[in-house]
């Protein structure tokens, strides 16, 4: 993809957008990401997240599926997938509603929740960092 190539050439920091209405999660997660050298953009609801993503497409999105409105995250994912510039941005979904991945039965092929990875909350920081590193280096 054209934009990706461009970032690769300039080698600027990769941008990660965190969308969660829980300020504490956003705060606690952004620090280790920044330390790792990522540029972190924060949004506290789905609409704001979408707005920011459209202005400057991030390299990866971390988002809670259940925010203020119970279905907010679901719709945000859906809408991102329908937006050309955001279609291929990896989305990592987090949720404290489900603690095991088997319980999280939303078939990605049904395009209802086309997320790339799922992390139960509280998120294992180390695992999350590894997954993000891996995902973002795939492009190189």
């Amino acid at each position, binding site marked *: 993809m054209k934009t990706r190539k461009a970032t690769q050439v300039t080698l600027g920091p990769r941008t990660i957008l965190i969308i969660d209405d*829980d300020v*504490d*999660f956003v*705060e*606690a*997660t952004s*620090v*280790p990401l*920044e*330390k790792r050298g990522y540029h972190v953009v924060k949004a506290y609801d789905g609409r704001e997240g979408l707005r920011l993503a459209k202005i400057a497409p991030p390299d990866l999105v971390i988002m809670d599926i259940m925010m*203020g409105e119970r279905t907010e995250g679901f719709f945000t994912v859906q809408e991102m997938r329908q937006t050309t510039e955001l279609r291929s941005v990896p989305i990592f979904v987090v949720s*404290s*509603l489900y603690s095991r991945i088997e319980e999280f039965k939303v078939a990605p092929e049904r395009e209802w929740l086309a997320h790339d990875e799922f992390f139960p*909350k*509280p*998120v*294992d*920081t*180390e695992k999350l960092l590894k997954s993000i590193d891996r995902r973002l280096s795939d492009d190189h």
Partner: protein
Amino acid sequence: MRESAGLEQIVVIDDDYAMRLSCLQALSKLGLHVETCEDGAKGLNSVARLKPDLVLVDLKMPGISGMEVISRIHEIDPIIVIIVITGYATIGTAVDAMKAGAYDFLPKPFKPDELRMIVGRSLQHRRLLLESRRLEMERELLKRRFITFVSHQLKTPLTAIHQYLDVLRNLGDTVEVRAKSNEWLDRCLKRTKEMREIVDDWLTLSRMEGGMLSRQRVKVDLKPIVLNVLKTYREMEEANDVTLVPQLPGDSCLVRGDHNCLSVLFDNLIANAIKYNKPGGQVTVSAEMGDGEVVIAVHDTGVGIPREHKDYLFDEFFRVRGQGHTATTGTGLGLPICKRIVRESGGTIEVESEVGVGSTFRVRLPAYNAQDTNENQKGDPGDFGAEDDIDH
């Protein structure tokens, strides 16, 4: 299946044709739906199909015995009321049947009036059973929903705390951590407090469910209660920006109630008035004696409550979303607790509010009256037999 709601159903199981016929005639006069069967097997079929309110069972029948029929009926539904018909009215068989779960017995021969009398009484009993089952189910449902909801509510702060700890551990002793750790520990403490509040509210609510707090009603003066709550909040930093103003009458405000409950009530109302206030705002608690009642108003100059939310304020877990509300933490259990306390104390609570201007929660409690030393206990429905309207 019920043909129409309210029509009570009776199954008569007796091998004697004449007996079935006279039961049918006598009971149809009461406007009851009656089905008759000539043996236990057919009778049990009808019972399983109709789920009747009452079954009359002859104890001495060919085929399945009457005693067996009784226990099988209660396997189908334990609150179907059973009356046994005993051919030879030996007390012994009747007692055995009652032990096996029958509610009453009818010795043969009997007059239609006697039958109607016993059936009427038994149906009264059935209605009470139905009512208590309904309440039981309601409680059960609420409890189950409650547990799920409270668990989720606890999980949110717990997750946040865990997240901070995980990151602190993950980053180890680094510049970033040193810069953040105090702030993060404060956040953790704040969220721990949130969890404690949830548990406290939960305990208060469940303690009241058991009726423990509200049963004793004694002479209570509301004045020191209100003043004490105000004092507590004045000492807390949360109330720094809000002025707390008591407007209480010179003499005491006596009501009949439970001291602890009434403290919880005003604590919740005043806490809300502070929490949903604006910087520099005011909370006024006024009390006045009305006609046989004490009216206490907790008034604030806060964010107010949108009209469309007013009906839900007293529902468990309800919290208003929107300006001035979502920034605060809360359990959504405070007002439901208030409502219950007020109701148990024989009073009412109402709210007036205007968005951006403020809210007033007004509580009316029956004033203490030295004369009525015995509080009016509700009559005990104990004796079901007292009703005599079966001849209608």
